């Protein structure tokens, strides 16, 4: 039997990897993938807690998070597409019209 701590540790590690990825990567698509990673790490912790408490609510929340993550990814990709059409690049350091 694997204890809840391990699940939570995994989730925390994945979450941190996601955050670091968002901060250091430049490719917009990779950034979106890192955001997905963050959301999915949350799913792991939610499921772990739900089974720990023997409560179904956490598991239900996971479905919603999945749906939201999908919606976010769709919008994100659409916006990246729009930028690519105008700018021919998805490197976020080259998207810098707006500053200060």
């Amino acid at each position, binding site marked *: 039997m694997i204890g809840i701590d391990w699940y*939570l540790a995994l989730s925390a590690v994945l*979450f941190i990897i*996601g*955050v670091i990825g*968002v901060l250091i990567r430049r490719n*917009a698509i990779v*950034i*979106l993938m890192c*955001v997905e990673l*963050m*959301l999915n*790490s*949350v799913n792991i*912790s*939610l499921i*772990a*807690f739900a089974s*720990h*408490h023997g*409560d179904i*609510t*956490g598991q*239900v*929340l996971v479905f*919603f*998070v999945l749906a*939201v993550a999908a*919606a*976010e990814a769709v*919008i*994100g990709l*659409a*916006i*990246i597409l*729009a*930028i690519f059409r*105008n*700018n021919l690049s998805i490197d*976020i350091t080259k*998207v*810098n*019209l*707006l*500053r*200060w």
Partner: protein
Amino acid sequence: MVEHTLHSISLFYPEIIIVVTLCVIIIADLVVKKKNHTAGWILMGGFGLAGITVLLQAGRNESVFYDMVAVDPFALFFKVLLLLSGIFIVFFSVNSDELKAYKSRIGEYYMLLAGMMLGMLLMVGSTNLLLMYLAFEVTSISSYVLVGFIKKSLRSSESSMKYIIYGAVSSGVMLYGISLLIGITGATDIYGINAALLAGVDQPLILNISILMIIVGLGFKITVVPFHFWAPDVYEGAPMTIAAILAVASKIAAFGMLIRFFSVSFINAEGISAAGVWQIFDALHWDLLLGAMAAMAMIVGNLTALMQDNIKRMLAYSSIAHAGYLLMGVVILTEQGISSILIYLFIYLFMNLGAFYVAMLFSNKVNTESIEAYKGLGHRAPLEGVAMTIFLVSLTGLPPTGGFIAKLYIFGAAISAGWIWLVAIAGITTVISLFYYIRVVRNMYFFEPETGAKRLHFTFGSKIILLLMLIPTLLLGVYFTPLLEFAQSSIKILGLN
């Protein structure tokens, strides 16, 4: 069970009406050939109808859908504010030249606006972390698209991308915080969390981390320092109407959610008078933390606004500063503090929307958002110039405008709670804010228009809309008793002292 559901539905009409409106707009968009803001008028009708049903709920204090949503005076106040700002935004959109180029897609625009409104209405009513997160995301996702609505403009797309990255990360952080909070308390509704916290949790460190993470998400929505970086870029790139709704409505909704979350989850009904609301978990000085955030928002917002030339960017920084002033009320978290937030938001709605509206009218006519280009505009557009002056004076917080009353209240609440240093910072930053607000006025009036520049003509309708925001801004500066009573009765249910 069926009975409860049916009863819940009967109290859920405002949200249902918005959803129905959204569907009608989609259908109308398919059916109607000549697309000329038809969807806008439908949406206006929907908002109006929803507003009526909201008002019919006055005096109700119930929890529907098994403690998912609260239908209470507190939610009612915020819903009224949100729908009011929604109606104004539709008016703005109909008058916006920026959107005219996208006539064929305008149906989508209004549909997304309806979606955003749905999310915001749920945000202020939800009492369950699950629904809070969902409502938050519904609002965010609709607004991501709206910000990037002007597809051909790289600025618009860029701001949209920045918004979605910031938004997704901060909502992800918030979600992680929510999962931790659910994990250690074992409850998803805020009443259950309150009960669990009162019983005592054995993981204070994780509890504190989770609250911090939730503050990140909410701080992003209310654009408080240090989660504000997206705001200026997004406001500048977004269509003016969307910048206005982000500055006003989504901030109102986020404050509604923030106040409900804090004041319900962390209240200790018995010990409230003894050590203040924040005593329930004292590992961190939460009030000090939020106070520091408020102070930072006032300082950073006002100082950075000094350097702006784009009116939208200037208003963005000013809205960051206003988030700081508003957050002062949360720091105190007394009945006086919260009611002063409500009053402030109500007045802020009119004055800030008004400033955005005049900026939009000017950019329609002279096709610029640069403050330098405002030279002489006051003489070319007398009514609009005077209105802009009054809105900006009100945003500064000078009498006899509503902004003064808002500031007076929030300063008063903070002083009576002993937060003198915070009020001192707020006072000093108010003086600083004068510089950039008055710069617009100076450019409008102190320079003569270029020779040959004609007087600007605006439609009668647009002037009426302007007056609808101008009159409350002025009136609330001299007569505000009803607003005060409305705000005070709205927060009774929170049980603060």
